[in-house]
């Protein structure tokens, strides 16, 4: 693939979301997002153990209006989730969700009605082990990344297995606890090969094409990548989870840009600050990007202290306008960026 478009830098647009301990407006350990044709942004809230009952998909729009939420609740019943990881939306308005604890895919409509579910723990066709990343191509084929089986499995939207590829290892086409998956416009499949610190690219039916990245924290290097998405020019956006950053690679895997995060107050966060003057006033006199002592020198610890930086970037997704959504589980928000073309 050639680079028809010069690599332009990505610029920050804004932050959406707000921590919440209850249902309704706000995010609770967001894990993935998807975009409906009508402009709705769907946010999957995985939730922690204390707030497990709040597991849900929240809906909002680009203007940050809260548009409701839906789920079948926490549990093992039909359509219920325990540890959801990723979502995909089909052109019928059906939302598919992987659940790594229940080893299954669940389908609901956006009113929260149960449509279907499939899968059980195992390594046979149709079974799954730790399903994580999820993506749907233009033909409606679902790609499910199985961290426990170190493979990718394709399904029809009705849950029929179309085959698998991959095995345990670090060679081409092998995986070590893979997580996210993204597709390019041509239908090629990109897998965040989490514990191999690389992105692997495959044809739509699983033929190995290339691998990008190596272990490390330098330009173009990766540490435990959690997600990957690809824009219309073939540029790859990788949530470099272990490095708490986003790496942007050109279509040949060359380094383009690294983002560390620069979150600002979302509309909902501004609303909170406007009615909590004690916090607003002391916040305004604070330095939220502080110098840290040497023992707090890992990306994770730095992010835990530095609010604008990415902390727990678990997913990257592009909307129809090539806006990049970086979902941060530990900060309960999404930072949005856009690539300037030309």
């Amino acid at each position: 693939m050639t680079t028809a478009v010069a690599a332009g830098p990505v610029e920050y647009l804004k932050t959406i979301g707000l921590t919440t301990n209850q249902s309704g407006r706000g995010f609770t350990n967001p894990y993935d997002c998807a975009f409906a044709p009508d402009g709705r942004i769907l946010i999957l809230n995985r939730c922690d153990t204390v707030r497990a009952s709040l597991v849900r998909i929240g809906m909002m729009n680009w203007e940050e209006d809260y548009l409701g939420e839906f789920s079948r609740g926490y549990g093992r019943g039909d359509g219920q989730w325990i540890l959801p990881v990723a979502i995909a939306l089909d052109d019928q308005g059906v939302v598919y969700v992987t659940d790594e604890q229940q080893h299954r895919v669940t389908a609901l409509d956006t009113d929260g009605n149960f449509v279907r579910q499939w899968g059980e723990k195992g390594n046979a066709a149709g079974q799954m082990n730790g399903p994580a990343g999820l993506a749907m191509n233009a033909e409606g084929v679902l790609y499910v990344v199985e961290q426990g089986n170190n493979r990718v499995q394709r399904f029809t939207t009705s849950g029929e297995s179309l085959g698998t590829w991959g095995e345990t290892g670090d060679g081409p086409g092998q995986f070590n606890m893979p997580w996210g998956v993204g597709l390019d416009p041509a239908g090629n499949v990109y897998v965040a090969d989490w514990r191999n610190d690389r992105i692997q690219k495959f044809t739509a039916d699983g033929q190995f094409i290339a691998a990008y990245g190596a272990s490390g924290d330098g330009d173009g290097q990766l540490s435990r990548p959690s997600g990957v998405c690809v824009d219309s020019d073939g540029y790859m956006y990788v949530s470099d989870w272990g490095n708490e950053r986003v790496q942007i690679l050109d279509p040949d895997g060359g380094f383009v840009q690294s983002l560390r995060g620069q979150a600002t107050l979302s509309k909902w966060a501004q609303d909170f600050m406007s009615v909590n003057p004690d916090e607003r006033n002391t916040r305004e006199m604070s330095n939220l990007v502080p110098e840290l002592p040497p023992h707090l020198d890992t990306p994770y610890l730095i992010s835990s202290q530095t609010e604008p930086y990415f902390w727990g970037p678990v997913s990257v997704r592009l909307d129809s306008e090539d806006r990049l959504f970086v979902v941060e589980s530990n900060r309960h928000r999404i930072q949005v960026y856009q690539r300037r073309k030309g």
Partner: protein
Amino acid sequence: MSNADIALMAHLMRRAGFGASRDELEQRVARGYENVVEDLVNPGTPNAMPDDVIRRYHVDMAEMRELNSAGAYWIYRMVTTDNPLEEKMALFWHSLFATGYSKLNQARALMNQIDTFRRHSMGSFHTMLVELSRDPAMIIWLDNNDNHKDDINENYGRELLELFSMGIGNYTEDDVKECARAFTGWTLGNAEYMATRASRDSIWPYSRIAWHFQYRDHDHDDGEKTFLGHTGNFNGEDIINIIVQQEATARFVSTRLFQFFAADEVDAAGEAVIEQMMATYFASNYEIRSVLRTLFNSDYFKSEAARFARVKGPVELVVGAVRLAGTYQEPTFGADQLARYTLYMGQGIFQPPSVEGWHEGSEWIDSGALVERVNFVGKELGDPSNPGVKALIDRMSAGVERPLSAEEQVDACADLLGPMQLSSATRTSLSEFAGEQGEADLRAGTRTEADDQRIANLLRLLTATREYQLA
């Protein structure tokens, strides 16, 4: 390899660690007692459960917002580390420098404090006290963020002397004030915002912001101070220099280590060991590693009288049972319950009852706590499908040529769980139970799940004995 050697090594590993399987005990005995002490006080790579797999599976342990998630995260490390004394020492310092979640609302800061305790666990006590004084969780816990040049707050200065280094009776009220003056300006970054968030338990807008130390020179009282007979323009480190030189400090630290590792009560023989530890403290330039070496190699520690002379603390009981059962070796659904169990038993991690820490020894045991202790350990060791339990039964079955009688089952279980010396009354009761269950046929080819369950049932019952509840 004698039974006496195994029993002595089991004693060391119960105290300096969380117990050990028979296979591990045999390996360590082959290495030699004093070499094992050196291994323990000079920890290498921990090989604990990898942080990335924990944080991927447990979203709460990644964010580290919840009290019990933080506690369970630490328990994972205690369960899987190859350096048990390092974790035991971190637990010791957490007990001594007891800092609680309730005022902080900051589990990440508490985990960072534990990391500091681990990093300096067996090094210089001087360094430990300096790092403790710079620890943001401690600063908020004892109000040093409110200790200002023109308006001192004595809380940290007082506890540093009373609870963390010398003990009451070894300093004056004036020393407390001068100590507090020396620590003015020792605060945390963005102190006003962080204190506001802590007091409001705020998670908004984007969850907790962890804490770091900051020294504010403009808020430090640089005037002359007189502390324990020394005069100068002391800052906090100068005060700690004076503290660590005190005999009272040597006695305080040695006694607390003795009580944590050797015996709940100090008798005359124990007093002699403490004197030796104090001498080592000064000779080693306040190095905790050297003080521990003196303790573990003392005749007192190795004596029969020192064995089973301490009540297992809830955390060491839970961790010991899980390590022996071989469970929680990878991220496990519901693992945060482990932290809750220690709370039900009276030792909630990051939840000391006060800055004085927990009341240990026999106070660990009351009727409610004992039921929790027995139920938890019984559940772990009473399940023959748990890998450590299966390994224990496998070992018991090696080479057996006939079904085991009731008494043989009891003796084998007591041996592999300790070795434990059962009272005759306990042995008789257990034998009666085993007799009602029937013979356990562990011979290859005839061994069944029912045989394994009989042994596991006996293990479950053994964990309820007085002998098992002691370390």
